[in-house]
Structures are given as C-alpha cells and as structure tokens.
C-alpha cells in the first residue's frame, strides 16, 4: 500500500471553541493510482491533504507513505519528505509572480536530487514556448500547467492537487485533468486530488467522500473514464 491513513484525528481550538476537523479518518491508496477526495467546504479535505503532504500534523492516528510513518517525522525529516517525495498543485497556482515560467520550475528543480529536464517537462505540459514569460502574461490554464510542471519536475512519488481545476473554465479544466492523467501514466506518479466536482471522480482509481471530518464513502472505481470524456 502506498498511502495508508489510519484513524487520523485533527482538531483546532480557537478560544474556547474546539473544532474537530478530522474525526478518525482512515484511507488507502495504491502506488500509481489516482485518488479523488470529494466533499463540501469544511469537510476536512484540505486538512487531510496537508497532513499527507507533511505541511500539517494530526493529533493522533497514523499516516504511512510508502512505508514511512510521516506522523513520527520531526520538522527536518518532514522537510526532506516534502523535498523528495511530494509535488503540490494548488487551486490558485501559487506561482512566484516575478519569476519567469522557467524560473518558477527551477524553484523546485533547484533543490531536487535528480530532477527531470525542465525543457522536457515544459514540452510534457504543453507550454514549451512560454518558458521566458512571467505568470501574469499567461492564462489561468497555462498558469496551472506551469504549476503542474513545477510539481512534477522533481519526479515526485505523490502529487497532491488541491482543487486543480477550481479556478478554471470547463475546457481548460478538462485539458488540465488530461494532463494530470498523462503525468500519472508517463511518470507513474500517484495522484491524490481534492475537488468539489463529483464528475472528476470518474477518472480516479479510488474515490473518498468526506463529510464533517469523516470518510462516508471509500470506493474503488471499476469504470474509469478518461479525462477527455468527462463532462459536467
């Protein structure tokens, strides 16, 4: 098993109010699979992903990624984990505005042990002609491609995508989903994706439905539909 989450709990306390965000979540994802986490706002999707990505801690429970229990890692080890194994794609791209496309990708390749060739990655995400442009000069879809290129250039074991199509129109969203599908196939990268959009679940191997901090549905998709055929 590539990702194994068992009885993960997380709560926040603001003043006297304690909010339980994750109430004993358990889930699994195999290597090379695409997993989709569905759920409304405030269901705990992002918190779950942040803990799997090593940028947040759970209160109790276990998170094991490729045999390593990341809940036991200290801050330095977690940095190493994110540095080597995890790629992030955000809803609003989070590109560094005053770095060119090439330089934005370099931000990550610069600290990777064996990064992919930047030009090859740019070709793979379909923006090889935009290498010297600044993010502001690109469309939303192009910016998300840059974000994906940046995430995959380190050849991560796991790509975590937080609403990758949330800010995009239908056509662009589909092309981004196709791209993620290609990445998954070409590099064998496991992908865990958060989305509101239930239609996207059709392209996943595994679907998790989260509600109020609990997994209410954990299903294996027997009828995977390629991204290009997904409609909503």
């Amino acid at each position: 098993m590539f990702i194994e989450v068992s009885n993960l709990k997380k709560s926040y306390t603001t003043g006297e109010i304690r909010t339980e965000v994750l109430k004993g979540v358990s889930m699994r994802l195999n290597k090379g699979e695409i997993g989709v986490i569905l759920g409304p706002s405030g269901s705990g999707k992002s918190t779950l992903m942040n803990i799997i990505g090593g940028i947040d801690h759970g209160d109790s429970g276990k998170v094991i990624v490729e045999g390593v229990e990341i809940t036991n890692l200290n801050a330095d080890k977690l940095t190493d984990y994110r540095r080597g194994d995890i790629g992030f794609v955000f809803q609003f791209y989070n590109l560094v505005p005053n770095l060119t496309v090439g330089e934005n990708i370099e931000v990550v390749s610069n600290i990777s042990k064996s990064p992919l060739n930047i030009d090859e990655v740019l070709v793979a995400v379909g923006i090889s002609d935009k290498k010297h442009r600044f993010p502001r000069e690109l469309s939303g879809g192009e910016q998300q491609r840059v974000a994906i290129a940046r995430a995959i250039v380190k050849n991560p074991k796991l790509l975590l995508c937080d609403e990758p199509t949330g800010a995009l129109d239908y056509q662009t969203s589909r092309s981004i989903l196709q791209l993620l599908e290609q990445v998954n196939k070409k590099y064998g990268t496991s992908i865990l994706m958060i989305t509101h959009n239930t239609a996207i679940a059709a392209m996943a191997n595994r679907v998790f439905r989260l509600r109020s901090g609990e997994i209410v549905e954990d299903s294996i998709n027997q009828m995977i539909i390629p991204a290009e055929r997904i409609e909503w």
Partner: protein
Amino acid sequence: MTINKRISRIIKENLLRYIGVLLLIVLGSFTFIIASGISQNLDALVTTFTEGHKQEDLSFRTDKAIWEIEELEKAANGIIEESYSYDAAITDSLTLRLLSKTEKVNIPAVVDGRMLSGMGEIMLDPAFAKANGYTIGSQIKTFEKTYTVVGFVSLPHYIYPLKNVYDTVVSPNNFGVGLISQEEFASIQNAATIYAIRFDDRTTSLNKQAAKFRALLHEKGIVDSEWIDIMNNKRARTVWASITGMKTMSIPIPVAMFLLCCLIIGIMIWRMIRHESVIIGTLYAQGYRRKELIRHYITIPLLLSIIGGVIGSLLALPSIAPAVLSMISYYNVPVINIETNIVNILIGILTPLLFLGLSSYLVIRSELKRNPADLMKGDRQKTKVNTLERSLKLERFRFSTKFKLREQLRSVSRLTFLFLGVTSASVLMLLGFTIMNSMNYVFSNSTNDTYRFEYEYAYKELQYGKAPDGAEIFSAGRFYSENNEGIEFYISGVESNSTILTLKRSVGNPLPNNQTNITKPLADRLGIRAGDTVSLINKQDGKAYTFHIDAVADSYAGQFIFMPIAEFNQQLKLPQNSYMGLWSTKKLDIPEEQLLGMKSLSETASAMDEFMGPMVSMVVAMTLIACVVGLIIIYLVTSLIIEENKSTISLFKIFGYRRREIKSLVLNSSTFVIIAAFIVSIPIMTASMDAMYGYLGNMINLVLPTIISPLYVAICFAAIMLTYQLSKLLCTRKVNAVSMTEALKLGAE
C-alpha cells in the same frame, strides 16, 4: 473616526519597523539641532569675544621702538598697542610664553579668578594650567622669578594657543601662555616687543589697509618683521574651521536622514494602501471621502515625524551646552552664555513633518485616485513585473542568483532606499577614517618624509656664512598670489644640495633642490603646473616677483615654494651669502636673543599624538552612528522583503526548502546591493572630502589630501557587513515565523 483606531494596531504589528523610521527621524532632528546649536553658539562666543576684546588685525615686530603711536593710529585709522612677549622655559620640554597685559588691543578676558592687580601675579591659559596642574593660588616658577596664579585668562589672539603660527595643533603639555603686568618685563631680559593694530574700518580689505599701514611704517624708516595678519594666524583662525565644519554638517546629514525617511515611509505607506486596496475600495463604496482616507493614512507619517522631531529636539537641547563646552575646551574663549535658538528647534520639528508629510501625501493621493471598483479588485500590483525585470536576461545565472537579482529589482524604490542608505552610512563611516588618515598622513608621514631635521631655528637678523655641522641654511618670505589675496604661503630658499629637504614627484622619485619646486597643495590651490611662470607678491615689500616653477612636489607638508637660496637671495635682493634660519639634526647652541623662534619636529609629533586621541574617539563615534543608521536601513529593507515574500517563503517551505536555503535566498538577496553601495560610497566620500578640504584650505590655510587607506576601507567594509549580518539575524525570526499555510490561503494568482 473609528477607522483611526487601527493606527495604533498597525504600528504595534510592525513595531520594530516603525521604531527604525522613528530613530532615523530622531537622528536627523538631533544632528540638526545639535550641530547648528554648536556652530551658532561657537560663532556667537568667538565673535563676541574677538569684537568685544578688540582682536588684533595684524601684529609685527620692528627694528626700533615706535614712539609716535598716536600719530600712526590716526594715519592708519586704527588702534595700536605695544606689548611684550618672552618664552620662559619651565622645564626642558615645557615653555610658558609670558605676555604683557594690554589695554587697547587683544584685551584679556578673565575666565576664572581675578585680573592682575600687581607684581608677582600671573594669569594662565586654562588648558595649560589644567595639563600641568596649576590652580588659582598655586605658584609657577620661571627662570629667576616665581608668580602666583591669580586667575585664568582668554586672549583674543591666542584662542588656539599655538607656539608658532605655522604650527597646526596645540600641545598644552609642552606650551602655554601666561599674562603678567607690563611692569614685570622691566626685569626680563630679551623680551620681544610686539605691536598689534586693529583697524577701525571693518569693511575695507585687510590686505589693503595693511599695505597702507606698512607703507606708513616704511615712510617713518621703521623696518618690520614677523608680520602676521589675522587671516593667516592659526591661533585665531583655527576655531573658525570647527564653526564652519559644524555649520556644514548641520545641513547634509539631517537632510540625508529626512530624505531616507521619506523614501522608506513612502514605500511603507504605498505598500499598505496597495495591500488594503480592497478595504479602501469598500470604504469608498460605503461613502467615505478621499480626504477622509488621506487623513487616515497620513496620520502615521505625521505622528512619526512629530514624535521623532520632538524626541530629537528634546534629546538635543540638553546636549548643546555640554557639546559647546566640549568643543570650546579645544580653544580658549570665555563662555559667557550658551543660548538655545528656538528657531532651530522649530526647524528640527517642522522639517521632518514637512518632508514626510508632503512625500506621504503625494504617495497616498496618487494611490487613492483609483476608482472603488478598481481598488476592490485587490492588489494586482504584486503580480506586476516592471520593465527592468522584464528586460533582464538572466538565463546564464544560477537559480539563486536569478532569484536574488529579481528580488532586488522588483521594487526600484526599495532598492533606491537600500542603496542610498548604505551609501550614506558608508560615506559617514569612511569620512571619519579618512579625516584621521589625512591628518596622520600630513602631520606624520608627509612631514617626516619631507624634512629630515629635528630643529628649526629662525633668526631675528639676517645671518651670513656657512651653517654649523649637521645643519643647513634657509631663508623664507611670505607671498600671496596677485589674483588671490586669501592664499598666503612661504617661498623658501634652501641649499641646492640639501639633504634635509626631500621632495618627491608623484611617481616617487626625488626632485633636485637646485630648481624651483612647488608643493602639491599650493600648486592645486593656485592652479600652477610645472613649467609655469608666475608672478607673486611679497608681503614684506608689496612688490611682485616672477618665478619659474620647475616641478610640482607630491608633498603635503605645508604650502611652499622651494628654490635654491642663491636664487632666492638674488630675486629678493638680499646679500648673496645671507640666510634667515637653520635646519638642524641636533640641538644648536644659539643665544636666545638672536632667535625669533625655534621649532622641534618631535614636539610637533607629540602634539599630533595628543590631537589624534580625541580624533580616534570621534571616528569611533561616527562609525557607531553609521552602523546604527546602516542597521536600521538594512533591517527595514530586509523586513519589507520578507513581508513582500511571505507567500514565496511559504511556498519554499512547502516545496521542502530548508531554513538556511530560504534564508540564503531571501536574506542574502541584498548582499550585492550593499557591496555596490559601499563601492560607490568611496568616490562619493573622496569628492566630499576634496570639497571639504578645499573649504578648509580657504578658511585656515591648511590643505589636507584625501588619502584613502586600504586598511580603513577594509575596516569600514567589515563594519558594514557586520551590520548587515546583524540585521539578517534580527530578521531570521521573521523568516522562520512565516507559516506554510500562508501559501495555502492565497486567493489570487
């Protein structure tokens, strides 16, 4: 307005940053009030003293006594007084110049104790008394006579009590002046009779009145010597160098501080408005007027400038009197009253208010001109890439270099602030070190390299024949340029094969003494080059003489033209084998009555050492101030960079960058700007020093070269880099505090 409740919260959020700006304003106001306070008080004290106590316009000696003083006074339209002077040796190394009490010119002022009332009493120059342990009531023994100290005295012609007028620094451990009654001189053998004149006409050129007066003396068959006019008398003029220096400093340093404050406050306000554009748009939409928002945003700069101006003034006010007293302690001027100028305080408070208020108003107004809909779209500025960044071709650089370069060029105003701030701090630091180095070079290295004598003897009468063993003869006359009466200098006749005088070309090889050589500072001031023929006027006879200059000597040991003594005598129509003085490597046994004066180079060196003590303290103080200014500026810029990069830092953390890698990228991005600013500060400092030294040259006839010592440059660079490291250390916590969730919260591109 309720909205103004935010102001204290905004300040608390970035307390250190606002304290930094406040400190710059405080420093600006403080420097202005204290420097102008010192210069105005010194000016008033010196002017009151010299005018009230009738400072001489010139002094001279004569070959015979002047009997018809009243007649001469009428003819010259001035007051003349005869006085006596005698150099009494207290010990081998301590000389007390006894001066007779005068009534009309150079009237003594009692600083402490009482005025002389009879025989056996003496009043001392306070610095000499302090250095040698004499108090009021104590006794001082000179040759055969013992005097009782009845008071301390200030003399208008000995404000800076130099032994010789051509000396540069005082040495109260070796020399001082004492005032005794005129009657005492009846029992003193070989006392010198000196005449001092003060002209009634205070508007006509001193040189013209002096020339007329000299002609009068000559008409009466009186031959004068040791003719010293007040403009060339360092005992009276040196104090003006301090006053002018303070006056000069009171403007540029505060202005630089205020301008830097304007720049940083402008950047901060601009960023705040950009950051809060959605709120501002919303407030507009809710009916707020632009002037209400302007009033709100301008409150912080106005508050800072008022608080800074008031604190700076409050700190400066009690410091003026001790600072004036400390400055005046180098001079001998009675301190009657130290005043605080209310106008200066107002300027100290209102100037930052005006500077910051105006600049902030312009920034705020331009930002608030945008319409509410545009403002509510949010801070689009932060994704904007300026032309400079866009035009850069950085492909060949490493990622870290590209990142740092882009980080700096992202905000031209921030870059300008950092660059100007570090340049100003470096200039301030280098100034102190260079002044010390120049002084040291002129008074130690250059003098020792040029002159190989230990004693200089000046005779009263012309001497004939050869010099004793170990000595060389010389003659000298005081001249000025036809076009520039203000520049006076000596032309010296020296032995053609002199081994005591060593002049060098700028390349370092020695110049022969059998030709006419001019020292570089004088050549520069007069605009003379090798090969020129110049006409110069002898102060003694007022006649013009023509000299052909063979070479310019790279020596700063005074402003001189040296020529073979035979030619000198021939030009000035002096007897062929005559001379006026001796340079000797050992002490000569010359009867005192034959001598006008004697100078020892080692005494000059020890006086210089005494002078360099406070100089080092001044340099240390300037370096510390520069470090504080540098620290504030670098800290402000670094904290701005961190704030602007919060999301990027957060992203770096998410991507797995280690702390030191983030620190290296973000905090070290200013390194090349700081190095560039330091390098640029060197020529700026050189130009400032050249200008200041040129001014000093005109004020007190002292020319200093701007000598940059690589060691001092290295020390200053190390101090700036240390300051930079300290500011980075202060900012490290800010970088560490940026949370990874910062990037996750982003709702824009």
